[in-house]
């Protein structure tokens, strides 16, 4: 219990929450999604 209390008070807890790599990965994924969708939409419009 006490331990939990302490760790919650630390402003930015441990190294583990450095998620820069994760963020870049998901954003790449997001741009793929948007790109593919508009590609398909363009094909739909052009037919």
């Amino acid at each position, binding site marked *: 219990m006490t331990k939990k209390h302490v760790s*919650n008070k630390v402003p930015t807890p441990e190294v583990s929450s*450095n998620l820069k790599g*994760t963020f870049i990965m*998901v954003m790449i994924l997001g741009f793929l999604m948007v790109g593919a969708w508009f590609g398909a939409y363009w094909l*739909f419009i052009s037919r």
Partner: protein
Amino acid sequence: MDGTENNLRLFPKKDARLYMSFMYVTFVSLLVGGLMGLLQTFVRSGKFTLPFNINYYTILTVHGVILGLVLTTFFIIGFQFALMGKTVGISDKQRNVGWISFWMMLVGTVMAAVTILVGQANVLYTFYAPLAAHPAFYIGLALVIVGSWISAFTNFRQLYVWKKAHKGEKSPLLAFMVIINMLMWVIASLGVAVSVVIQFIPWSLGYTETINVLVSRTLFWYFGHPLVYFWLLPAYMAWYAIIPKIIGGKLFSDSLARLAFILLLLFSIPVGFHHQLTEPGIDPTWKFIQVVLTMMVVVPSLMTAFSIFATFEITGRKKGFSSLFGWFKKLPWGDVRFFAPFVGMVAFIPGGIGGIINASHQMNALVHNTIWVTGHFHLTVATTVLLTYFGIAYWLVPHLTGRRLTKQINKLGIIQTIIWTVGMTIMSTAMHIQGLLGGPRRSAYSQYAGGEQVDTWIGYQLAQAVGGTILFIGILLMIYIFIKLTFFAPRGVEEFPIAAEDEDAQATPKILENWYLWVGITIALIAFAYTIPMIDIIKHSPPGSVPFKWPIGRM
């Protein structure tokens, strides 16, 4: 409670036998269904005709039913039973009921399979009315569904009993996930059960003269979309709660995992119209409403993507890799329990994106019933889901048989995964492109009206045969691995890798386990999305349809 010790404790023989029975059916299905898949690609190449006058649509029905419905359902129920056994335990009585469920499903499967094989059910796995199969086909399907419900209720009971013994504790994460999946399955399969029992069986037996076609299709797709989530959720279970352990890490967030599963329960059912977007007789405004709901079900998958990458990164950084992507290089690439599901995750990127395109209302006309769709679900179910199931089988099967995943088998597994990746990349890409060029799915070899367009399609069908051949080699290898793990691998203890929570993780909010609330919202959403259009469909029904037997070659 030390998780690791429990992870290494083998199941009592009696329990393991039940879980393994489901695995046997899974891998027999893989072999049978895979052979049909291979033959389909051969026929469609135009260079091969089936021997003994076997009809293309007979093998296609076998392929769809055995792989889409049987393999998946048996694996899922077996795996989920093992998860429940591990996390909350099983009583003698529950195990016996589990056996009843197994046998009922198996009898149903055999009934349906025999009916298909003798050519009395060339209706494909969607069995759209008014094509009429022999009643034994529908009765077999009904048995499979009801049998699966027995398992579902056994799982509910297992958690209930555990909860009573552990007042105030939150349920184990994996048990929670199993219950979500089974709740979704029961609520969804009610639709198809109603259709089969009330519409198809009496109609095929001649007790009722006609069937309401659009109602039967709507009930089917009310079930059909959650069906694909029923396949996917066990893969998500592994991604959230098992992979972290395999890579030497902890759960990313217990609460977020639960929240994602709840969102999947809420939004995966009221969306069936996205399979009926080009159908007459359904108001387009209601189609659009269900399209909006479909986009909501993407959100938990966005959360899942983040969780997975974060698990990888956190684990890597804890091990001391501090560069931006250093953690990525150090993932256990040589461990098939990780590698196979990882490829599955990668396949879900194009798979999921393709799904969003399919569901985009009028844009559906671009791809509806083209072979693009087949390419799409061979990425999602036949790669993402299946490779994750394989990734599970590599440790689950030896855990159940008291053997070990040796270095050598692990290596074969890596090769299997690579073969699958190569074969599927070829087959699925060819299908996607051919589909965008208009090539239809569910079609034996044909030159149609001839011309340049058709020639292009046939080129891609040749590529599919190449991919299909490679895939089939992958299936043979997988069967070999399964036999090795079941009967021949050295005895020992293979870990059942369940990840633990971080000691200083935040407490999980109680509301996440308020079943009444979530089931209530689920039902409310279904009622919202379906009541008015369903009343419309029934009110404006055309005359019913009599059974049509001759189009599927029945006398």
